[in-house]
């Protein structure tokens, strides 16, 4: 692809740099934690042999059957190899919020009020979704 940076704003280029770093770190985390899980280095919370019994259930019954918490309740359980995987999954789901925070700083400094307000509103929405306060957890 022929690059034409004169048409690309500075904040868009910075966002791309942050996104690039975020996705690389996220993928490494995702693969590393799954390797630990699949190799059986640590014991999983749900034994592999029991997975087919619970993955057919709707999520509420799955949580009840496995005793797993919802929301951020997996954090105290990261000693289990299956819960360890949520580090990579959560990191990838946080990448956009991190990039938006960086973008907000740039837009506020530049005095681009309209876009800065939209970006700040988006950060609030994504943070609310990530917090588990909006119907995510029980």
């Amino acid at each position, binding site marked *: *692809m*022929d*690059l*034409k*940076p004169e*048409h*690309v*704003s500075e*904040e*868009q*280029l910075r*966002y*791309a*740099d942050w*996104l*690039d770093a975020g*996705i690389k770190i*996220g*993928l490494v985390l*995702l*693969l590393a934690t*799954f390797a630990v899980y*699949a190799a059986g280095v640590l014991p999983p919370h749900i034994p*592999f042999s029991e997975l*087919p019994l619970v*993955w*057919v259930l709707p*999520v509420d019954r*799955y*949580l009840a059957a496995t005793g*797993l918490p*919802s*929301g*951020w309740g997996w954090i105290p359980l990261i000693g289990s190899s299956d819960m360890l*995987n*949520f580090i*990579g*999954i959560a990191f*990838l*789901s946080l*990448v*956009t*919020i991190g990039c*938006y925070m960086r*973008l907000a700083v740039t837009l506020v400094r530049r005095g681009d009020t*309209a*876009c800065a307000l*939209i*970006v700040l*509103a*988006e950060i609030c*929405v*994504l943070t*609310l*979704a*990530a917090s588990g306060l*909006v*119907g*995510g*957890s029980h």
Partner: protein
Amino acid sequence: MAWWVWPIVLFAVTFVLGVVAVLGGVGGGVLFVPIVSGFFPFHLDFVRGAGLLLALCGALAAGPALLRSGMASMRLSLPLALVGSITSIFGALLGLALPANVVQTALGAVILAIVILMLRIRGRETPETSSPDTLSAALRLHGVYHDPALGRDVEWQARNTVAGLATFALIGVLAGMFGLGAGWANVPALNLLMGVPLKLAAGTSSFLLSVIDTSAAWIYLNRGAMLPILVVPSCVGIMLGARIGARLLRVAPTVLIRRIVIVLLAFAGSRALLKGLGLWT
């Protein structure tokens, strides 16, 4: 079947889906959700959660190159992503609250509607630049990008911004409810409704997905509807497949592959519809 067979089969199937999705010009999620929910043993709740995460991973991975080359407009995305990410939360909550057979039936209907959309709608490479509406002018939703295929710079100006925002509100609901990437809807909305050139619409759609799918993915993640054994092989499979697909793009018969994608979607959509109605369990 032994439990360990499923992640291996998932990886193989999603790898093929990744190749086919790129060559067919659709996102991986739109193929993944109906096919995996129709033919694999996982409950639809987990398939939708995984569908969102793999669409998110694909969009995040494509983002840096698209943004740096100017083939995606971040400024255009910001208001649309805000509306879409709010409504995708409601879509996710709705999808998790409804009975699985209702969601499965609706998923089948939506996939079949996408098939019709793909058959009937043709994009416009470079729509005529028109005068901006008030909101588009206020948010400065315009710009220039370089199109290597045309060998020139292309000016663009977004129009129908209010209608565009309303459309992205609906797209957000569908993305959250069904775990679909929604690129299939983003591109025609940006191109045909808002007058954004086709290539810029495709690039911007990918960036939009990285935001809209983030909010819905968090709802599924916080609810507990993410199974690592389903999510990780699928994400890795589809991303590797997409990389191979991108390399094959120049030599593969894309028209034929697009027809195969349409047939696949029609089959998977019919399967979802009939499974939801209890006619093909």
